[in-house]
């Protein structure tokens, strides 16, 4: 199978704005899907970043993974508190990526996951980077809602973000991702 090319959001549309909450770049997945979403050349002029996503993955997809600065070797830690509609549970693991949101799959026709990911003090070069994710999908009888936290063990300023589906499938058509910068006072 020919791999799908990822979307480079900064190459599709984007601009810098001077507001306290500024839209940096947006990506909408077209027909055929996309294996990844990349926000690159992220300016360091903000205090925090926020990604707002409405997304769906392929069959059996369950989560969105995040890597920073194309780093797939550094250690990352993440925690998850989730509810399935019947039970609540928690989970933690160390990987080379951070799992940041839940994800709906194509089994849930036309039902997409909502996620808000906050990446705090992303341009600071003195401390490891922390994110938090708030996410969920409901499919009228099934679904998951979850809180995530994650830490990338790296002090580099974040200049690019890659989002992928946890099981290697594509993001579905109409999945939408928007990156915002939040300025401090």
């Amino acid at each position, binding site marked *: 199978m020919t791999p799908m090319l990822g979307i480079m959001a900064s190459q599709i549309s984007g601009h810098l704005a001077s*507001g306290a909450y500024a839209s940096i770049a947006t990506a909408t997945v077209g027909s055929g899907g996309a294996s990844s979403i990349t926000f690159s050349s992220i300016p360091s002029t903000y205090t925090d970043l926020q990604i707002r*996503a409405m997304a769906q993955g392929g069959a059996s997809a369950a989560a969105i993974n995040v890597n920073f600065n194309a780093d797939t070797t550094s250690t990352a830690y993440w925690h998850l508190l989730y*509810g399935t509609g019947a039970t609540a549970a928690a989970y933690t693991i160390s990987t080379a990526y951070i799992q940041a949101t839940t994800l709906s799959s194509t089994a849930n026709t036309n039902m997409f996951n909502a996620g808000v990911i906050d990446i705090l003090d992303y341009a600071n070069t003195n401390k490891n980077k922390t994110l938090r994710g708030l996410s969920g999908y409901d499919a009228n*009888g099934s679904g998951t809602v979850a809180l995530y936290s994650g830490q990338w063990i790296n002090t580099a300023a974040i200049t690019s973000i890659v989002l992928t589906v946890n099981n290697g499938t594509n993001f579905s058509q109409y999945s939408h991702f928007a990156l915002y910068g939040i300025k401090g006072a």
Partner: protein
Amino acid sequence: MAAGNTYVALASNTLSSAAASVTFSSISGAYTDLVLICNIGASASTSVNFGFNGDTGTNYSTTILTGNGTTAASARTSTASNSTDYIAFYTAGAPSGLTGSMIFNVMNYANTTTNKTILARSGSDSKEIDLVVGLWRSTAAITSIVIGMQTGNFITGSTFTLYGIAAA
């Protein structure tokens, strides 16, 4: 897009008298997401529910993660006539007039291709903290939102502010 115009207050309502529901109508389709921030009090032990575009059919469902200070739990409503339990208020016998807060995200609300997913976090210190995802099984663009109490009223002074967030 004008600089500084990405996160825009569209409407706000501070109740001057008790009301069973609040409606935001004629919502512009010019934004990517909507965010509704509420600080509300309840006149009775109840939960908050939502509806869109005046739809009272059984087209809503929710999945909830909740914690009450002792235990965490999860629950679900399916094929419901509105989205429920976004803020659960105090149980009977608790002091009246206690408030709860909620941030309610409606993603890609104006698209006409997909069903709508809503993500909210809320809490009422007298009752519990909740993380809720909701589904409205409609591909229509959302043009109005009604926020209501399952029973009783929002108390005077309850605040509701609707924002639009624009993407690049």
